Structure formats: structure tokens, C-alpha cells
């Protein structure tokens, strides 16, 4: 297969885009070909999404030119992009929750509204590529992978032949990912140009024909996937050689710390989120939680942290001398007052763990502002803590009086984790601790977690990247639809098996 025979569908030249003082893209060149899957690689903040957003009309470049099929074009809005046959599936789905699938799919198209005809056409597309979509289903009733399918159908419905997918597998199970990849290969063979933004190496190797790499907003290079390997690509992304192994020291003297028995939780709408969940988390050990997103991971952590009303079951905190404290029915304040030092790094960093508009020092205060009997808050200690976190975790920030929303994702996470471990916890709960983080930041976080483990903290680590989970966790608890599908040792666990357990209780395939 020779690339030279193909015509470049998209040529981006000298694209520059800045957000305030931040240069997101700096004179980037990129070619996209038809009949080919291009993997756009780069660390977070390297400008991949920004670049593609300019192609799909969300952002407008400060400088540079874009040409489609050899013709210079100006893409001022998403509509212009559609007219040129460019469709983008964003990482955060662009769907209106209260509308149906069909309504979402025809959104923005001209002409008379005829949902019946639209449904017909949608069914046609679905059967051509092997999707399953009910055109009349409301988006808020759908699972994440269903929503993604709607997004893809939406783009196809508009006749797009240049498809951009921004981290499409972040929320999918291995099985769903395989299905998606099959569809993408189908489309490629159909002559469409496909760009997939990702930073998962094995996906790049499995799927793409060519890779293009960005670093710090600059174009580093592109090459056929077959001529490179994960190590080389990573080095290009990061700019220096990195090791891709995660440490997993043996747990030292593990003792039961948190015992969960028969935990059952319902959401406000009465849907069963957790059913009869039982397990023990030990000190000095990382207990990984695997599962399709929305299978009760959030509820599990929030129940332990005292944020979730529980229907039945018990959660005991066991001290070193064997005394037990019941955590259910207590809110975070009373748990802390009991002397249980429990830290929680939630999934939603800026919406829950931190206050986006407050500066670093004020965010440090979140955990400590109640200390002392004075009516007034102590401002000095949090400032010192903020300084220490910035220094120890190498947070890149203009200063401790910068609002955290101005920091990049990795730095935000460092601030949050830094605050949570500063209180010398005995239990550390983390949800998707490295989601959206680049490789360097991710490894910093793994190191921090391992350090806590060495100090005897009981760690419950909810993760989505199975490869990481298998390398990091001492034991893995697999959730499936709110039930425990199994608890297996992390060493020697097999990705296929865990994947099966995620989709099916017990994980045994019917053969």
C-alpha cells in the first residue's frame, strides 16, 4: 500500500492558534488522506484537540491556511465544516439530553422537519455499518456507548467523508472498542478519511495506518504506523526517552482497613446502582476497581466517603487495633470528626474536588478551614501548604494565587492529589486519577499513589485503562451493573478475562 497514490483530502499549513498567553498550536502542518486512518498523537495540552477543532469550525485559527481537496477554504463555523464533508465526534458528546436520537441527528440541517423520513434514513445507515440505534430513544436514557453511536451516525447522516474522533475509546469497554474499530475499518475501506485522537499506544498500533505527533503545540512528524513502535512514538510525544513500566511493590504487612458488606445503593430516581457489594480493602495495598463507566464506581466511592445515601449494608473502618467504626449514615464532616483520615480524589476535579474559580491557597483551605475555634479562617497554613504542593509535585503555575481553572488538567490533578495526601490519610479513594492526563503527569500520579501504598495507606483505585489497572493494582475488583463480578489478584490477571467480567457477571463466556 503506497501512500503516494492517494490524494490529500485535507492540507493544514502553518496553523497557529493561541488562547491568551498560551500558544496551543504553533505553525502546524498536517495532511489527511482518504482511505486511511490517521492517529493524531500527543500529550495532553499538545494541541491535538485544538487543531481538530479548527478543522471542524469550533475554533478559528489565528494564522495559517486549510485546503480541502486542493482548494483553499475558510472554515468559520461548524456549518462550513459540514458543507465540506468534515464531521467531528467530540470527546464530550455534543448531544441534547432531552431530545431523541433522531432529533439530535437531524439537528442543524435545513428543510422541513420530517422525523419519520429521518428515522428511515438512520435505520439505513445503521444496517449498512452495523450500528444499533433506536431513533426515538431519548439521549438521557442511553448508555455512553449508545450516545457515541448516535454521534457517529449523526456525522454519517450528514454525508461526512472526513471523520474526526476525539478520544473515542475513553469510555468504552474492550468489547465495545473492538466493535468501534471494526466499524472504523469498514468506513476506511469505504474511502473515508478518518482521524482518531488518542494517547493509548496499543490502539494506535491496532487501528491506524499512519501516525502524526504533536508536542507542545508543534508538529513533530508523521510516519506509517508499521514503521514505528510504541516506545519510539512515546519518546517523540514526550520529547525524551521514558520508561513505560509502572512499579508494583509487594504490599507490606497488609491488614484489613475498610470492610464493605452487602452494600446496596439506589439513585434518586430509584434505579439500583449497587447491589449487595462486599469486599475488604487492606492497608498498604492498592485495590483496583474495574468496570464499564457508570456501573456503580462513583456510588461505591461516594458511599465510603459519606456522600451517598445508602439503602442497605455496612461499611466498617477498622483501626490497627481491631476497633471498628461504622461509616454509613455519617457525612464527610462527622467521618473526619471521628478521627478517620479519609481522602478522596473524585472523578470531577473542578466540579467537586476543587473550586475552579478559587486560587491554590483557597483550595487548600477546603479541607482545613474549620480547624480552630476562631470565627475567622486561618489563611497562613493553607498558603504554606500550597507552596509545598507546588514545589514537591512540580505544579507548573504562575503562583499560588492563580485560580485553579487556569491550570492544565495534569496540574489541577496534582493540586488535588497533593491536598488529599497532605492530611496523612489512612484511606485514599481515587476515581479516574489519570483521566485526561499526559504520560508524564500520569506517571507522577502513579508514583504518588505507590508512595502512599508504601506508607501503609489503603488505596481504592477506580480506573478505566485496563492496561494500567493490571500493572498497578494488587487486587482487582470487577463491577458489572452494580454487582461484584469477581475479585482477582492483579498479578497475572488477563485483560480479556477482566473485560469479560466487566460485561458479564462472573465473566464466563457461553461456549
Amino acid at each position, binding site marked *: 500500500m503506497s501512500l503516494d497514490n492517494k490524494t490529500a483530502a485535507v492540507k493544514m499549513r502553518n496553523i497557529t492558534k493561541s488562547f491568551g498567553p498560551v500558544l496551543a498550536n504553533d505553525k502546524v502542518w498536517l495532511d489527511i488522506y482518504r482511505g486511511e486512518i490517521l492517529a493524531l498523537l500527543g500529550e495532553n495540552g499538545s494541541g491535538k484537540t485544538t487543531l481538530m477543532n479548527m478543522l471542524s469550525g469550533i475554533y478559528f485559527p489565528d494564522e495559517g491556511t486549510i485546503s480541502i481537496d486542493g482548494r483553499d477554504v475558510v472554515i468559520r463555523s461548524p456549518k462550513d465544516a459540514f458543507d465540506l464533508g468534515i464531521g467531528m465526534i467530540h470527546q464530550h458528546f455534543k*448531544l441534547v439530553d432531552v431530545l431523541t436520537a433522531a432529533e439530535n441527528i*437531524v439537528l442543524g440541517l435545513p428543510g422541513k422537519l420530517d422525523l419519520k423520513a429521518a428515522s428511515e434514513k438512520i435505520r439505513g445507515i445503521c444496517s449498512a455499518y452495523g450500528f444499533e440505534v433506536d431513533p426515538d430513544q431519548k439521549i438521557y436514557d442511553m448508555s455512553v456507548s449508545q450516545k457515541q453511536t448516535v454521534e457517529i451516525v449523526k456525522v454519517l447522516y450528514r454525508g461526512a467523508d472526513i471523520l474526526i474522533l476525539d478520544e473515542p475509546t475513553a469510555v468504552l469497554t474492550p468489547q465495545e472498542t473492538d466493535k468501534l474499530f471494526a466499524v472504523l475499518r469498514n468506513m476506511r475501506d469505504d474511502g473515508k478519511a478518518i482521524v482518531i485522537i488518542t494517547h493509548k499506544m496499543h490502539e494506535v498500533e491496532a487501528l491506524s495506518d499512519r501516525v502524526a505527533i504533536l508536542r507542545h503545540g508543534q508538529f513533530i512528524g508523521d510516519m506509517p504506523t508499521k514503521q514505528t513502535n510504541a516506545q519510539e512514538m512515546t519518546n517523540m510525544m514526550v520529547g525524551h526517552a521514558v520508561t513505560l513500566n509502572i512499579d508494583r511493590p509487594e504490599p507490606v504487612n497488609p491488614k484489613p482497613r475498610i470492610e464493605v458488606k452487602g452494600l446496596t445503593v439506589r439513585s434518586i430516581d430509584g434505579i439500583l446502582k449497587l447491589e449487595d457489594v462486599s469486599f475488604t480493602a487492606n492497608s498498604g495495598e492498592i485495590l483496583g476497581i474495574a468496570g464499564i463507566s457508570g456501573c456503580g464506581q462513583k456510588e461505591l466511592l461516594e458511599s465510603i466517603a459519606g456522600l451517598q445515601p445508602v439503602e442497605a449494608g455496612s461499611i466498617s473502618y477498622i483501626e490497627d487495633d481491631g476497633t471498628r467504626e461504622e461509616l454509613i449514615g455519617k457525612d464527610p464532616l462527622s467521618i473526619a470528626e471521628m478521627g478517620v483520615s479519609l481522602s478522596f480524589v473524585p472523578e470531577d476535579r473542578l466540579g467537586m474536588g476543587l473550586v475552579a474559580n478559587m486560587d491554590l491557597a483557597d483550595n487548600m483551605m477546603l479541607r482545613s478551614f474549620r480547624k480552630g475555634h476562631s470565627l475567622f479562617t486561618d489563611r497562613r497554613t493553607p498558603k504554606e501548604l500550597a507552596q509545598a504542593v507546588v514545589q514537591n509535585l512540580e505544579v507548573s503555575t504562575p503562583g499560588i494565587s492563580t485560580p485553579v481553572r487556569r491550570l492544565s488538567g495534569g496540574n489541577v490533578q496534582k493540586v488535588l492529589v497533593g491536598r488529599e495526601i497532605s492530611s496523612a490519610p489512612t484511606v485514599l479513594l481515587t476515581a479516574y486519577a489519570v483521566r485526561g492526563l499526559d504520560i508524564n503527569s500520569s506517571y507522577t500520579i502513579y508514583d504518588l499513589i505507590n508512595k502512599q501504598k508504601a506508607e501503609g495507606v489503603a488505596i481504592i483505585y477506580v480506573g478505566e485503562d485496563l492496561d494500567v489497572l493490571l500493572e498497578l493494582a494488587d487486587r482487582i475488583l470487577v463491577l458489572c451493573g452494580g454487582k461484584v463480578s469477581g475479585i482477582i489478584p492483579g498479578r497475572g490477571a488477563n485483560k480479556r478475562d477482566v473485560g469479560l467480567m466487566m460485561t458479564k457477571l462472573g465473566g464466563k463466556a457461553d461456549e
Partner: protein
Amino acid sequence: MFDFVSFIPRAIMQGIPLLCGSTGETLTEKSGNLNLGIPGIMYVGAISGVMGAFFYEQAVGPANISPFLAIAIPLLCCMLGSFLMGLLYCFLTVSLRANQNVTGLALTTFGVGFGNFFGGSLIKLSGSDVPAIVLSATSSYFRRTLPFASTTGWFGKIFLSYGFLAYLAVILSLVAAYILKRTRVGLHLRAVGESPNTADAAGINVGRYKYVATCTGSMIAGLGGLYYIMDYTSGIWSSDAFGDRGWLAIALVIFTVWRPNVGVLASFLFGGLYILHMYIPSGMNLAIKELYKMIPYVVTIVVLVISSLRNKRENQPPASLGLAFFREER
């Protein structure tokens, strides 16, 4: 015996300004704009119509008024006035992305002041003894009822005895309901109010939808002000007469769960509550009447509470209501 035949038409006439206001505000809110300037806009709509009619009457003299112009001039003036108010709101909140609450309140301050100021000036110009402008000639055209209104007994009184603006208001809200539910424009508008980023990514011109919906909504609301002066009060403008109906109209939007067709009946109901104090026998006790006047507000509060108790997804306000949209927000 409660006199329904006289109560219902008066309730409906009270309800029409509320209906216009709430239909207008529903369209506006569906685009994600919470326009708290509606009370001011209704004042401006009313006074613009009054000014048009006043100068027309002055120019030709009450005897030579052409029926067509007597209706067309105030109507156009009213729509122009309220359109400009809507445009100002949009410019500040959509183009300049200002805080919607504050902009709305400022618009209300401005609009009510504008209405009372020019109303007061016209009163001076007309040199009348009472502090009011009387436009009975123009009003008589606005008040012209359907044929057979007076010959068909209670039926005529209840269904046929209104000026054309009342029927227009009902038709407008039914049309608005149809557009929102059944047409592509309505679908796009709903998407803009729910999630402007999504709508934008789907190629919908979010700014334009917000502008058009808000300005149209303002014009409809302005008609409510015009109706109140030209029909309900028989063409008499006096300061602050329009009162707090604008705020009640905004409250009605929540009551109707953002459905203009529900608004038709709801506004008549509220119109009834508004005048109920005149129909409750209270003898010579004037004080108790003041307490009866609380009814519409208390009912609004009860409605607010009840609607906050039921949590159906379809009954929630547009998700991005009150938020400015900026495509490149990160």
C-alpha cells in the same frame, strides 16, 4: 350567586396581557435567555403604542380617524418599541455576554421609567385635568368585538366579546407552541436553549436564534402592554397602571412548564385570580380586600413550590437558561 358571565370575560381580559408576556418570555427562555426585562418591555410596548395613537389623533383630530391607521400606527409603534428593547437586551447579553439577571433588571428600570416619563410628558402635552391620557377614539377600534357578541347572550359574552388583540394573543401562543414542538426551527431553538455548544457544533447559528427568539418574544410581550391600554382600560394611560403584570407573566412561564399552549388557560386562570378580590363579598371592610389582592402572588408561590417538587426531565427549564454562550470557552 357568583356571577360567572361577568367574571369570565373580565378574567380573560386580565389574562391576555399575562398571556402575551408569558408567550414572549417562553420563546425567549427557550433560546436560553432569561429576560427579566419583560416588565419594562411591556411598559415600552404600551407607551410606544400610546404615543403613536396620541400623535395620530392629534394630527388628524378624533373625527377624521381612519380605522386602518388607528390600528396600524399604534400596533407598529408598539412592535418597534418592544423590538428595540429586545434588541438592546440581546446586544448586551448575546453579543457582549453580559449577566442576564442584571441586564434584565436594568431593562425593567429603564422601561418602566421610559413608560412613565413619556406618559407623564404626554399628559402634560394634552393639558388634561386628570393625570391620564385618554385615547377613546383609537381604543374604540381596538375594542371592536366579533359580530353577534351582544346578540348571543352568555355565549357571546364569554367567547365573542373581545377585541382582535385578544384573539391574536391566543393564536400567537398556539402558533408558538406548534413551532416549538413540530417544526425544525422549534427543534433548533430548543437545542440552542438546552445546549448551545451542541447546537453550534451542529451548525446552528446560536447567536441568530437567540436574537430572533428574544426580539420576537419581546414584540409579543409588548403587544400585551398595548392590549392592556387600548382594550382593557379603554385607552386610558396613567402612570404605573400596568403594575406588576410583567413579573406575573414571567412566573407563568414556569407554571406552564415552558408550553405556550398551556399558557392560554393558565393566564386566564391568573387573570381570574387577579380580579378575584372584586368578586369576593367583603362588605365595608376595605382592609380585607388588600389581603385578597395577595391571592395571585400566593398562588404563584404555591405553583413554584409544586413545580419544584415534580422532577420530570421534560419539565425542567432549558438547561443553559441564564448562561452566556461563547464558542471558544475552554
